[in-house]
């Protein structure tokens, strides 16, 4: 069985001592930073990425993935304990999770989130094992025209499911791609938009863009009106759910896992949609509808499982097609590229140890999450109590030193300030930051495939619509745009997002 050989190779890689160690460190660091209020997973990962750059590629990628799970779970902890979700997918958990905490059941809520996440993570990892190889094989037949169309589809589909104005999201994508062209042109060696600054020849670092748009812009917004944080409980007792709780969460975890696994593959806000969807489903099928909103444990189990399953399956498009479905995956893509690996269909064949090692370590990372988070919950609670007036200067200082250390380049630090200010004003004017980051990371790929495809077709732009796979992909992109702007669907979508928000 080839599959078992592959998994064996994966285990061999993942359980190497340094990989286990850095997977553990990644999960711990991710959780530690993730629980800090006001820092979502994207900012957490961007802040911690520089730490991983000195490691071996396999080890670094495993650590980044660990940071991702940790950050995700840390966000849920914050949502449950102080009702301040770090990102939109944890917003649903906050509704009933925080109510449970106020009723003195913070322990079972946190344990349910961890157990649900672990089961969902395990299932979704199996899906990645089963579906990634055939998808990668299919993508191997793609030429440049197909890849160009695929990236276009990925970018456009990522906004079809998101909230807010479609026009603004499109503009943010294009702006991101445009910022991606800063630096030396790979074909001619001509500097573009560098204003004679040598430090910009290598382009703008994606860590700076992410830290600026998601970290610093968020600080500006938080300083505008400081929310009062209310920690409901300082000591968590009775961590373990009761037998009755276990009976109540079994089915929601199963439903959440299935829903999340399916939606996670979709580009855009698949994981957000998954947790909102899981909440709606649980509310609909529950016999205790009146408990929803007042601390129903099902409303923590379902969305948390969905969220984590989606987090896992969103690796499928990244690992097989090189397409990040959301900003966090865009950062992970950036981390791959820093280590000289272009994610895509070739990774599985050219770097089997990395591919399978990463997949096995996904499962190990989820295991660490349960083993680590439940016993250490006291420490996380203490981190929650760090006042914001100390927290945000720390984020600024760490962001500065972290990005400077990438190539010892002071312009990386200036770029944080630039993207922080730009991001702050654009967010205030109703533009979401995620599409810009996706465009920025995928922009160079888009330009490269565009130029290559046109060289192959001898300058004939119809190549994109006459090659059948490319034509289908572009047609799907058009459908995605239509779906995004159709008033009926728009309204439905706004309802889904508005209704569930606390």
């Amino acid at each position, binding site marked *: 069985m080839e599959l078992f050989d592959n998994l064996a190779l994966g285990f061999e890689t993942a359980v190497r001592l340094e990989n286990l160690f850095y997977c553990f460190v990644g999960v711990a660091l991710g959780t530690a930073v993730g629980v800090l209020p006001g820092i979502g997973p994207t900012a957490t990962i961007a802040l911690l990425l520089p730490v991983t750059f000195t490691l071996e590629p396999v080890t670094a990628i495993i650590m980044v993935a660990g940071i991702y799970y940790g950050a995700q779970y840390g966000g849920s902890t914050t949502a449950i304990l102080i009702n301040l979700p770090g990102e939109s997918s944890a917003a649903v958990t906050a509704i009933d999770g925080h109510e449970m905490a106020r009723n003195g059941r913070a322990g079972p809520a946190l344990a349910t989130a961890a157990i649900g996440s672990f089961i969902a993570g395990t299932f979704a990892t199996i899906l990645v094992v089963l579906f990634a190889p055939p998808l990668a094989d299919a993508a191997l037949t793609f030429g440049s025209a197909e890849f160009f169309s695929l990236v276009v589809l990925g970018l456009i589909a990522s906004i079809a499911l998101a909230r807010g104005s479609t026009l603004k999201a499109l503009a943010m994508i294009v702006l991101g791609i445009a910022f991606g062209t800063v630096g030396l*042109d790979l074909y001619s060696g001509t500097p573009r938009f560098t204003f004679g600054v040598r430090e910009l020849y290598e382009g703008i670092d994606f860590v700076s863009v992410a830290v600026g748009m998601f970290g*610093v812009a968020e600080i500006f917004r938080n*300083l505008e009106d400081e929310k009062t944080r209310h920690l409901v409980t300082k000591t968590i007792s009775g961590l373990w759910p009761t037998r009755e709780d276990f009976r109540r969460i079994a089915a929601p975890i199963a439903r959440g896992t299935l829903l999340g696994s399916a939606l996670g593959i979709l580009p855009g806000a698949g994981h957000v949609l998954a947790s909102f969807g899981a909440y709606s489903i649980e509310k609909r099928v529950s016999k205790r509808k009146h408990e929803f909103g007042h601390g129903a444990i099902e409303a923590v189990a379902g969305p948390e499982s969905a969220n984590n399953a989606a987090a896992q399956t969103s690796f499928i498009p990244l690992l097989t097609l090189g397409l990040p479905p959301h900003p966090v995956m865009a950062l992970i893509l950036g981390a791959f590229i820093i280590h000289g690996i272009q994610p895509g269909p070739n990774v599985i064949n050219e770097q089997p140890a990395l591919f399978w090692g990463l997949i096995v370590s996904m499962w190990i990372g989820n295991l660490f999450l349960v083993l680590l988070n439940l016993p250490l919950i006291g420490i996380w609670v203490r981190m929650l109590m760090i006042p914001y007036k*100390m927290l945000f200067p*720390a984020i600024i200082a760490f*962001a500065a030193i972290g990005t400077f250390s990438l190539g010892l380049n002071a312009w990386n630090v200036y770029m944080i300030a630039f993207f922080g200010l730009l991001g702050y004003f654009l967010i205030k*004017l*109703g533009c979401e930051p995620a599409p810009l980051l996706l465009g920025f990371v995928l922009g160079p790929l888009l330009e490269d495939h565009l130029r290559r495809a*046109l060289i192959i077709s001898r300058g004939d732009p119809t190549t994109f619509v006459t090659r059948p796979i490319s034509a289908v992909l572009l047609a799907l992109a058009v459908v995605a745009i239509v779906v995004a702007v159709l008033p009926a669907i728009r309204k439905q979508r706004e309802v889904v997002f508005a209704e569930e928000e606390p």
Partner: protein
Amino acid sequence: MPDVGRALKDVLAGGIFIVLGLGFAIGSLTTEIGTPLRMGPGYFPLILGGILVVLGALIVGKGFIAGEGEAIGAVDWRALIFITAALLFFGLTIRGIGVIGALFGAALLAAAARSETSPREALVIAIALTVISVVVFIVALQLRLPLIGTWIPV
């Protein structure tokens, strides 16, 4: 004049896209454009700049037809200025003064961004952060950064 207040958010957002789009388009004209077959360095950014201007104009137009009408809200200029200054200070002094001084200055400026923080508090935060960062980044992670920069004779 149509209701500008209602359209303000979209007009400003569209305006930012138009200005940046024009910037990219004009900037790309200073390099070789080329043909579709042999694209020069300016070809792709020129297209992007053009699309950005069009999208910006559409957003402005949409604002007048169906503006969202929500207020933009107050801007905490103090926070913007101090935090930007903190990052610039770090970038400008890291080589000259070294990690300790650059970090301390940046942390002090950043801490002062919040108007409720007293100068004494800011000083304490800055000292604590400098110590923590040096321990984490230099001692634990062993980043090769100069503790004392080239401007300071030792």
